[in-house]
């Protein structure tokens, strides 16, 4: 009887412990939408709003999107995004609305312009450089692989001597 009780107790502790872990870990899994009332009732529209918001920089935290940030300005901008989504505006229109107020800096992925050409071009450029180097190294190695020169008279004589037996 006593043994059974202690086993039950141990089990209870495990369950409580697991529950605590789940409660602690949950906030890490959700977005920073502080208040569920912020969300649009239509899950489809809400998903679109989240998609737009995740492309917009929070101007206070700067390396977070407005969906991830809990800064006051991010909350205000999230509300604007949701209002415009509910009004039936397109993704491009909403992002343009933000850019006209805050500049391209608000876009987490900067658009391809003359000023960002090097930024976007660097990765393909590095890949191209790698290919060129690989090609040059390879073609040189092929050139080095030459047929050995024929044996001289002296070497032939030595070979004959060694293989005589």
């Amino acid at each position, binding site marked *: 009887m006593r043994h059974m009780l202690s086993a039950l107790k141990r089990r209870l502790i495990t369950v409580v412990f697991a529950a605590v872990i789940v409660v602690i870990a949950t906030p890490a899994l959700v977005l920073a939408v502080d208040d569920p009332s912020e969300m649009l009732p239509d899950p489809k529209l809400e998903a679109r709003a989240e998609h737009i918001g995740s492309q917009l920089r929070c101007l206070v935290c700067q390396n977070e999107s407005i969906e991830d940030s809990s800064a006051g*300005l991010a909350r*205000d901008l999230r509300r604007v995004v949701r209002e415009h989504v509910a009004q039936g505006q397109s993704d491009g229109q909403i992002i343009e609305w933000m*850019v006209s*107020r805050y*500049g391209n800096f608000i876009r987490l992925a900067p658009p391809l312009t003359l000023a960002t050409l090097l930024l976007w071009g660097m990765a393909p450029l590095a890949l191209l450089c790698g290919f060129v180097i690989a090609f040059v190294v390879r073609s040189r190695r092929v050139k080095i692989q030459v*047929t050995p020169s024929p044996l001289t008279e002296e070497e032939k004589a030595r070979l004959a001597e060694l293989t005589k037996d």
Partner: protein
Amino acid sequence: MNDTHDAPPSSPLRRRLLMGVPLAGAAIVGVGFARMLSGMQKGSFDPHKINTPVINRPVPDFTLAAQPPGTGFSAQDLRTMTKPVLVNFFASWCIPCLAEMPVLMTIKKDIELWGIAYKDRPENAEGFLRHSGNPYTRIGSDREGRTGIDWGISGVPESFLVTPGGIIRWHTATPLAPDILQTTLLPLLAKLNSP
């Protein structure tokens, strides 16, 4: 045929070029980074700066309720002004705004100051101005922060120089300090008033 197993001896020029190109590339990048770092120290380069695109644009449309002790104003009021106005966003919850107040009190003789209380309770903003002194001719209340977003502000305090006709000519997202006045704002005002 007299080829050997050794690699063909490369010419010294080619060797130097092969070494030189990556070195030159690294040198250019190094100079670029050094200039960025020195600019960050001197304050001429700030990677966090938001290049507000409202410069040289007309003020956005808005109408603000009065924030006691001032009277509210709208975009139309700014457009019909015949002299420059410095529009200053502030809030009672903002410590740098409190630090900026003595500077605003000194420049109100040079330029008219219009205040916008950003995301602030009217009674709190009123108490703040009673405490720190009121440098503003007119004061509007942007309780929800919507007007602030239309002006492209990312925090408080921020100041915008609006010229007659309601065009935004200059902007700073930092508290106005005596050195900004001397190096930037006052020379700009002198230039605007001279022709």
